[in-house]
């Protein structure tokens, strides 16, 4: 898995009015993958993105994007990187096509080429039928889709999308995610920030979690999942017909059990290893009908919550 690195930051730091927003961030993103930038509100995701594009100057540290320093060579970065801001806006009085025309012109794309691109992209994001409608009449979701077409028109090597699925309906989210997931095949690396973990889990190859300006964890999704699991806890959920204090006590005595939590007829057990058979035996021996037992698999949710809590 020796991939070319397309984005690299070194001790990237930014502060506003004395408050450090991005704190010595060291990030490395490989080429041709979908990278998910996660983190709670105010973690510094947008600021990081702005620094990568040279729209904001870092207080210290440096970044390299596609081999250029965005602070010193912003134009070179902007030529190869596309950016969709969180609240994307367009010229409301112009049509979708005209809006894209302007961007194509600013990128020195010839008229014939841009017209072909615009038609293709508008269809790809599902706006083919409203290409000649004024953007002012668009819904938020439609603008969001247009924003994605807007980023892709310059055929970027790197597409940075800030909350690309915010405001979309479920179908729109699916379409958008499929489109984004297909981009690495055509040579576009995608960086997306999002709050919606399942989206990130679905299409991202790697993630980085930011909290209070620091990179809490980064790596490929598989790797992180394994790490989170081996880190200890198997969580076993047990549901019985009824619960007695005796039963809880007996389970607690089982070697390898670290924590037992009872809620009604529901037991939540933390263990060092998969103790399902042992627990089942105890429950059955105590003459209490066992309704359900399952082992909890770690999802991105857990990875996120775990590191986010650690970050606090």
């Amino acid at each position, binding site marked *: 898995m020796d991939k070319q690195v397309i984005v690299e930051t070194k001790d990237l730091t930014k502060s506003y009015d004395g408050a450090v927003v991005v704190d010595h961030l060291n990030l490395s993103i490989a080429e041709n993958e979908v990278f998910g930038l996660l983190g709670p509100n105010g973690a510094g995701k947008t600021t990081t993105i702005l620094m990568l594009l040279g729209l904001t100057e870092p207080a210290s540290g440096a970044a390299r994007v596609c081999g250029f320093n965005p602070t010193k060579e912003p*134009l070179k970065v902007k030529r190869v990187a596309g950016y969709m801001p969180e*609240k994307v*806006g367009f010229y409301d009085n112009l049509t979708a096509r005209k809006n894209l025309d302007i961007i194509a012109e600013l990128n020195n794309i010839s008229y014939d080429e841009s017209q072909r691109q615009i038609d293709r992209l508008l269809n790809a994001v599902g706006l083919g039928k409203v290409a000649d409608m004024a953007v002012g009449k668009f819904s938020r979701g439609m603008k969001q889709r247009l924003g994605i077409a807007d980023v892709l028109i310059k055929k970027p090597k790197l597409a940075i999308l800030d909350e690309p699925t915010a405001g979309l309906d479920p179908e729109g989210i699916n379409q958008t995610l499929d489109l984004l997931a297909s981009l690495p095949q055509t040579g576009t690396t995608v960086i997306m920030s999002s709050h919606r973990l399942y989206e990130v889990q679905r299409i991202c190859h790697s993630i980085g979690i930011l909290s209070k300006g620091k990179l809490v964890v980064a790596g490929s999704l598989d790797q992180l999942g394994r790490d989170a699991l081996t880190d200890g806890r198997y969580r076993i959920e047990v549901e019985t017909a009824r619960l007695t204090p005796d039963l809880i006590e007996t389970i607690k005595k089982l070697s390898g059990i670290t924590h037992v939590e009872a809620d009604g007829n529901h037991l939540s057990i933390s263990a060092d290893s998969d103790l399902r058979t042992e627990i089942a035996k105890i429950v059955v021996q105590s003459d209490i009908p066992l309704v359900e037992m399952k082992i909890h698999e770690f999802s991105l949710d857990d990875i996120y919550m775990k590191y986010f809590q650690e970050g606090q």
Partner: protein
Amino acid sequence: MRAIFRKELADYFGSFRFLVLLVLVLLITAATLYFDYKSIRTSTADTEFIFLRLFTTQPEGAPQTEGINLFSFINFFALFFIPIMGIALGFDAISGERSSGNLSRLLSQPIYRDNVIIAKFLAGLFALSLMVITSVLIISGYGLQLIGVPPSLEEIYRLVLFVVLAIFYGAFWMGLAVLFSTVFKRVSTSLMSSLGIWLFFGLFYVLLIAPAIANSLAPTASGTLEAVVHNLELGLSIKRFSPNFLFLEASGVLLQPPPVGSLLGAVPVVTSDLINWMIPAPLSLGQTLLLVWPHLTSLLSLTIVCFAVGYVVFMRQEIRAT
């Protein structure tokens, strides 16, 4: 930069705002021509620069405040039309882009940031020049039919100079509006600030504040001629801080050349018996130019200062999505 310039210009010409301004231009020219029609034909006064009088004639009996007649073409131009036009063309230059969420998208394209603000300013200036020239040409054209006296070469020079002066003056207001549009994040704040400055300089400063300062610094209680002269001189200098006054004074000299003797800069304290002695020869073009040169450069430098501050603020500004 060409792409943005073209887009901005297309925006202006297609916008409702431009239409409103254009209607305003037509109304002003129509009113001016009407007053011209009523007064010039009946007037038998000095025959010098009749053509220019198309632009300076004021309706008889119209209210006057401190010698400023609100209804003559140049005064209306100075006080209302050009400032409003400059502000209307500039107040949302940057803040509009910002509040619509366009700014960060635009700036993530491979263009220099200064190109955005320069292209916007130039496009506004172009639209403004077009309207000023249009209104002057309309009045000239219809006025020619009306009075039947063709303009002399000198009158044409003077008119061209007036147009240049008016464009500079408009550029100042636009520069100010662009400055506010970069400093303030919200479009309405930017607009209100520009309008506030305009009201201040257009009405309060020249009419109330400048005389008040002059009176308190140089009281005329003693009643001597020196005291009065000193008071007037001081008042004039203070008034010249107002761009409106600068324009008014300069355009007055250009279009209504004062007779030699009542030089601008010196206080026009001309007693009635002196007037009888003065030869009613208007100031020559060269001399006029010398007189308005400081005004022209002041307006230009004010414009540059406003635009430069706006430019620097914009270049250093954080571009956040929200």
